């Protein structure tokens, strides 16, 4: 390897707290990036990875400053450069692809103009040549109709398209190094997969080096040659992607990998106890010591340094040789599934359609429903008592809409939802009795928004207890403490406010609040999507435990197929509000699959460097669901003809209670999909 393009030497960055203390965000960072290589920086929130990436450009968020060390680009320390020199390299030889492209593109400026700006700043092309170059760049990132796109504004593009534009903008200066700060966060599963493939191809085509920052080990696995794992502002493990992902030599990295749910394993992953330290909390010893399964006295007293291992990795651990021998953690017990009985169902959907459209005045006078295609349509589903059913789909699939309808926030437009074989759930909240309200509880995705910031935990738990059981005073407090214990939070959390809790703790409180009502049915709306991976594992643990104890039925909505696999007994796949496939998890996750399920499965990013992505469908944006025919027919890679667009496909059942809604006969489907797998 020649001279490294980027060389970070013993970099330390931090800020001064209000109390006057200096708190570090990054400590002792050493990193070298050579030509053409891709390094993945992985870690959970607060580990400092974004700060590091931006620091390589000489950029520090306000309030931060360099404590020690330097970051060199082409041999020059970026923190010594003046504004002009920095402007020269930024966007040119060293370009950033930001996290949220939608917010990083200037809303009042056309796409063409913004990319042209980059070209103008960093190349010497004349005006006409620049225009050609912009079109060339847009084609390079595989955007259709580049000439037209030039004139569009950022808000007219979808999330995936915006991200591609951001990539094109970064490539404008023909960079030597690309910094990518979580570029696929917030994108749909399939879109994410396409963007990652694009990035891989670009890296090969242009020979650009990349620094890929992410918390998602699956994405990192896909693009990186080398991986550096960060914890509490320092590198704890660095090595080849293969080595780090297959045989991590640091207990944290190992724990992290183990807490990621896998598609092929129907178990809730193990979780690590505790939380990462806040800046300044780390103390004298190893930052991970209080959570480490093999920590000893020396770990708490002495901070380990990065040492090379036999496999040419760098590890920050006193006992890294012993990591291999650590026993695999126990998976939590899954509830007994043998007695799931369709007849003993708790919820039943009969040809349910749900729409957000409100009747206009004309409609009200004529007493008819608005003539708009419903958001969710033709849902036939039976949910057994005590099971966990997963609803998967991407954005716009209608999964949250279904939950809202069950909860009574949005009554169905047609069809019936029957609860417990007796009561109709077509009613809204106001029309339901206390018992029914109590039995169905909802947990939301984002605990920052679902917990009233003004209420203490005690108040938050008291509300359902008062409402459903009329508890007060001492009894109320007793019950609240019990609830907290069930979600493994101490009693002194009662006096805390949400702003004083971590993300995982807040979500536990939300779970406790739901279970305060002693519900029979709990609706989980992407409840772990906003959490770090290790925290997610803990919450999944908790949910499983509660189910074992109480026999609750879960409807678990998620876009993350691996998480659903870990938790669900049965899975239903939705596309644009219509069911595509339904059945026991192991059948749904195997061939034969509905073509959409096939696409979803192919796009899942496993933290496995050997796994290949299968990109079957185009990364297109579907506008409206069709009134008839298969909703997926416009994007379907196995499209067979006009019948797909004109006739609603029938349910094709297999044994095991598995059914697929497709025009292609199952046998053919299975053969075709088998072929695809073997040819890859």
């Amino acid at each position, binding site marked *: 390897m020649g001279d490294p393009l980027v060389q970070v030497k013993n970099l330390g960055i931090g800020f001064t707290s209000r109390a006057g203390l200096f708190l570090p965000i990054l400590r002792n960072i050493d990193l070298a990036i050579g030509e053409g290589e891709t390094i993945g920086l992985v870690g959970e929130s607060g580990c400092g990875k974004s700060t590091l990436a931006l620091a390589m450009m000489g950029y520090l968020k306000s309030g931060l400053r360099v404590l020690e060390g330097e970051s060199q680009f082409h041999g020059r320390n970026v923190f010594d450069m003046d504004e002009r020199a920095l402007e020269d390299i930024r*966007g040119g030889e060293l370009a950033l692809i*930001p996290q949220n492209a939608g*917010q990083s*593109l200037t809303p009042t*400026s056309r796409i063409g103009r913004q990319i042209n700006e980059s070209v103008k*700043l960093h190349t010497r092309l004349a005006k006409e040549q620049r225009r050609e170059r912009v079109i060339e760049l847009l084609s390079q990132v595989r955007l259709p*109709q580049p000439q037209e796109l030039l004139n569009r504004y950022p808000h007219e593009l979808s999330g995936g398209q915006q991200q591609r534009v951001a990539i094109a903008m970064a490539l404008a200066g023909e960079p030597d190094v690309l910094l990518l700060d979580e570029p696929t966060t917030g994108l749909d599963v399939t879109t994410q997969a396409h963007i990652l493939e694009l990035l891989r191809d670009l890296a090969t085509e242009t020979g650009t080096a990349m620094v890929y920052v992410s918390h998602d080990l699956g994405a990192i696995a896909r693009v990186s040659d080398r991986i550096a794992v960060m914890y509490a502002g320092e590198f704890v493990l660095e090595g080849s992607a293969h080595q780090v992902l297959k045989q991590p030599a640091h207990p944290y990295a190992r724990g992290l990998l183990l807490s990621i749910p896998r598609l092929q394993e129907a178990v809730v992953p193990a979780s690590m106890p505790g939380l990462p330290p806040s800046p300044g909390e780390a103390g004298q010893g190893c930052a991970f010591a209080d959570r480490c399964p093999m920590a000893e006295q020396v770990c708490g007293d002495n901070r380990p340094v990065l040492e090379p291992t036999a496999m040419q990795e760098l590890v920050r651990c006193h006992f890294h040789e012993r990591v291999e021998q650590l026993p695999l953690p126990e998976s939590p017990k899954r509830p007994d599934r043998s007695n799931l009985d369709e007849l003993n169902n708790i919820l039943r959907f009969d040809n349910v359609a749900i729409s957000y459209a409100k009747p206009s005045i004309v409609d009200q006078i004529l007493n008819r429903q608005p003539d708009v295609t419903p958001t969710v349509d033709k849902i036939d589903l039976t949910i057994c008592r005590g099971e966990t059913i997963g609803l998967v789909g991407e954005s716009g699939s209608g999964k949250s809409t279904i939950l809202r309808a069950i909860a009574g926030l949005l009554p169905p437009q047609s069809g019936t939802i029957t609860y417990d074989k007796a009561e109709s759930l077509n009613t809204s909240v106001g029309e339901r009795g206390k018992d029914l309200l109590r039995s169905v509880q909802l947990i939301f995705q984002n605990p920052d928004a679902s917990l009233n910031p003004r209420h203490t935990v005690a108040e938050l738990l008291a509300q359902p207890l008062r409402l459903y059981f009329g508890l007060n005073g001492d009894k109320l407090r007793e019950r609240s403490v019990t609830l907290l214990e069930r979600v493994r939070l101490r009693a002194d959390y009662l006096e805390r406010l949400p702003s004083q809790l971590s993300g995982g703790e807040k979500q536990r409180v939300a779970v406790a609040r739901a279970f305060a009502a002693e519900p029979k049915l709990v609706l989980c709306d992407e409840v772990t999507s906003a959490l770090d991976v290790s925290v997610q594992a803990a919450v999944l643990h908790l949910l499983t435990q509660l189910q074992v104890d109480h026999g609750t039925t879960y409807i678990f909505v998620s876009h993350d197929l691996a998480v659903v696999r870990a938790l669900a007994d049965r899975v239903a796949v939705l596309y644009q509000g219509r069911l595509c496939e339904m059945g026991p998890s192991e059948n749904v996750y195997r061939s034969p699959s509905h073509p959409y399920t096939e696409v979803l499965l192919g796009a899942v990013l496993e933290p496995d460097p050997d796994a290949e992505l299968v990109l079957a469908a185009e990364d297109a944006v579907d506008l409206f669901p069709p009134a008839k025919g298969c909703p997926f027919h416009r994007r379907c890679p196995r499209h067979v003809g006009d019948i797909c667009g004109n006739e609603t496909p029938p349910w094709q059942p297999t044994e095991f209670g598995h059914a697929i809604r497709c025009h292609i006969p199952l046998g053919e489907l299975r053969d075709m999909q088998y072929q695809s797998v073997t040819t890859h």
Partner: protein
Amino acid sequence: MVKLIARRLALGVLTIMLVSGIIFVGVEVLPGDACTAYLQRAAQGKRLENCRRDSGLERPALTRYVKWTLGAVRGDFGVSMKRKTLISKTVGTRFRNTVILGVTASIIGVPLAILLGIIAALWRDRLPDLWVSTTAIFAMTIPEFVSSTVLILIFSVWLGWLPGIVITRPDAPLFEFLSDIILPIVALALVMTAHILRMVRTSVIDVMASDYVQMARLKGVPYGQMVFRHVLPNALLPTINLVALTIAWLLGGTIVIEVVFNYPGLGRLMLQAIFFRDLAMVQAIALILATLYVGLNLFADLLTLVANPRLRTMQRSRP
């Protein structure tokens, strides 16, 4: 897009109609009627009857309302009880005078405010900002009659440069007013500039902290170019509406300035009309000022519609 414009125009018309209704009802609701109000203690017997007959007060309220609004559209507001002349004539010149005051103050004030607001934001918390912001706070919070009085004190009494009060006839041609207008314009512009400046400053500060501005910096855009291409368009767009609102609001309050400087504008006429309880005149002035307000807002909304790419492209479907 055309649909949006049409809708906005329709809304404007609806609002004016509503306002006319409110004005009419408001005046009706007050104790007594136009005649008892004007005549006050003399409101009795024959005099009252005659007055009522002449003003057409015997007819039902709805008829009077319709007659009034139809007349207003044509520019005919009836006859002033005090002056016994057509309201439209009197109001016409006064209106012109007030509009001159407002327009000139805006032409000076708005660009100045935008410039100062941008400067204050770009040099935030440093000397230029401290100067500008402090002055703005003073200008905003000190009542207009105070600032006008102080201006007269300085420029008329002590320095003797400009006349302190306007003595030119109300309907005199424009150029005779020129030296008289300067101080009132300054007084009005001062308040206007202060308000708008603060809004611009806040808007620019917000935009400077946004992700896309950070991105522009990180792709190597030089500071000046960043300010002009990325910051200003996004900062100034949302202020269009607020600027219009501020101007409209301030115009409604020129009365104080007009009283202090004895300026023959709509405000002073309004004061006189109220003092003499000339309700027909009051109604007319209220309607005119309200229409002015609605018109300014309408203009601002339409301007925003045209300038904001998000609104402009709402009809286009995604590629």
